[in-house]
């Protein structure tokens, strides 16, 4: 679908170079990287909005490296949504159709249908200036999708939203992708977002791609310090949710969630307590396991407890010494249902 060959782009104070990506049709592809890694510029280069020094961009077997942006069939949604403030919501969505000279009647019906899909039918007459963050995001998505682009580029689409809206929007994005069947390239600095949404993830660091793979591959085999640091900051599992219980293969975790069916969840290492005996407490999750790995990071120590699966816990050196933890020791881990974040 989109192939990027050896792309080189000047970011002012550093270069983005040796970028090679192969994105499948209909794929939800994530580019993950820290702030300032050049993610937005990479998207703009794909869209033809930023000059490319070297390399090629291909779409559907055609080279488009030097094609002007309006001819590419690639839409972009920016973090701040970039809605046209002088046009109503409806006129914003109609803009692309107008540019592509759709007949009036068809424009109308397409807008109505798209507004339905993203759930903004009641907002069409409003000015974008008056909308909330989540609403703006939906309008921007509708505007980008209504022209039926081959590819849609999302630039940190969730990071400007408050946590609650963010979770909802994440579901919406997944839903939208399932219904519209468009190829999505989504850039983010949020590891969970990447794991939650991406079919595949590319990690961008220091101006080049550090790793490409499925979320599972990332968690099991991080190939760089940068990815590992991301991966270490969370315990991430997938499982089946039913009535607030999530079966992650072997153990059932109690979580506060309305979700059913396939879910992913995360648990911070610092939210897990380690004890030699089972704890009597209000925490709903308590399991026995074996210490399988110990990683000394100076003031804190990462302890891996295998049930299976593996749980990574972080404890202080003092606690570590008092509990006399060694590899192979049997311990209990305890955490609250509310510490589990389902996404």
């Amino acid at each position: 679908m989109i192939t990027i060959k050896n792309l080189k782009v000047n970011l002012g104070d550093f270069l983005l170079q040796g970028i090679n990506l192969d994105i499948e049709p209909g794929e939800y592809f994530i580019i993950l990287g820290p702030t300032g890694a050049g993610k937005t510029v990479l998207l703009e280069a794909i869209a033809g909005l930023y000059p490319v020094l070297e390399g090629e961009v291909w779409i559907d077997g055609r080279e488009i490296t030097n094609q002007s942006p309006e001819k590419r069939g690639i839409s972009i949604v920016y973090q701040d949504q970039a809605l046209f403030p002088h046009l109503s919501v409806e006129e914003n969505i109609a803009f692309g159709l107008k540019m592509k000279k759709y007949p009036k009647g068809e424009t109308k019906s397409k807008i109505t249908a798209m507004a339905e899909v993203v759930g903004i039918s009641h907002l069409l007459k409003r000015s974008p200036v008056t909308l909330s963050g989540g609403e703006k995001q939906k309008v921007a998505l509708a505007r980008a999708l209504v022209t039926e682009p081959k590819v849609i580029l999302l630039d940190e689409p969730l990071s400007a939203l408050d946590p609650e809206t963010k979770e909802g929007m994440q579901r919406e994005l997944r839903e939208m992708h399932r219904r519209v069947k468009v190829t999505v390239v989504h850039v983010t600095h949020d590891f969970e977002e990447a794991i939650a949404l991406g079919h595949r993830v590319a990690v961008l660091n220091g101006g080049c791609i550090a790793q490409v793979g499925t979320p599972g591959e990332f968690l099991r085999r991080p190939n760089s310090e940068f990815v590992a640091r991301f991966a270490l900051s969370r315990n991430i599992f997938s499982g089946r949710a039913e009535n607030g219980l999530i079966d992650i293969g072997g153990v059932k975790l109690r979580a506060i969630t309305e979700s059913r069916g396939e879910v992913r969840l995360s648990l911070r290492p610092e939210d897990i307590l380690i004890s030699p005996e089972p704890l009597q407490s209000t925490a709903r999750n308590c399991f026995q396991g074996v210490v399988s790995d110990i990683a000394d990071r100076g003031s804190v120590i990462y302890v891996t407890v295998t049930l299976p699966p593996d749980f990574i816990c972080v404890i202080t050196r003092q606690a570590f010494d008092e509990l006399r933890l060694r590899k192979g020791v049997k311990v209990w881990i305890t955490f609250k249902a509310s510490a589990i974040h389902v996404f």
Partner: protein
Amino acid sequence: MAKMSLGRKPDSMSIVFIVLGALILLFIFAPPLKTIFSSSPGALWNTLLEEDVYSSILLTLSAALIATLIGLLLGVPLAYLLARHQFRGKRFVEAIIDVPIVIPHSAAGVALLFVFGSNFLAGKVLHSTGIGFFGAFAGVVIAMVFVSVPFLIDSAKEGFKAVDVRLEKVARTLGASPWRSFFRISLPLAGRSIFSGSVLMWARGLSEFGAIVIIAYSASFLGWNTKVLPVLVADRFDFGLDYTLPVAALAILISIAIFITLRTIAYKGEKA
């Protein structure tokens, strides 16, 4: 926006500042007001009916209007380039734009004559096509463009700068050519700044004296041989204050009336 209110008991600094502020406001406001009220409405009306005067008003208003239209056509594209692009020598270009503001206007008139006079450069070319500048309407117009276009360019530039470049980028990905993205997005969004820049340019053109008195002290216009208002006011002063006062009052009244009208239009747009 947070405002500091002048509470119940203003401190000494506020009092001093209010007094000084009132002084400068009075200084700005009193002379025009006194001039306007020094002539009776009847006298103003009679002055307005003099052929010299109304032909002068027409010449001044239309020349300033045409100057502003030329400024829009040539100045707005430059303003857009300056707002959107970084290039070597950009500061130099920006400095050049403000040259007309800093040089004495009578000297500017001489300089214009040097280029547009029938014996020189551009003047020669244009003269052969029948357009003359010395003592002509076209001369009034170019003098006005020269001294007033910086106000329009600077204001339009600030207007374009305030338009998020991402809006243009999104428009491009949605199928708009650079032209359509400019006319549908950038221009409407910078519209208010361009409009207020045009008002400034027009007002500045109306009031120009120095450059015009050199290049077109009097100009043939619609069959009259007439002078722009500022020149007419100065001209009549030679015959005495009483003679010039009603013309000066008219000039002030017309300028202020137009200025207020346009400001109101611009302000209305802002509220909507």
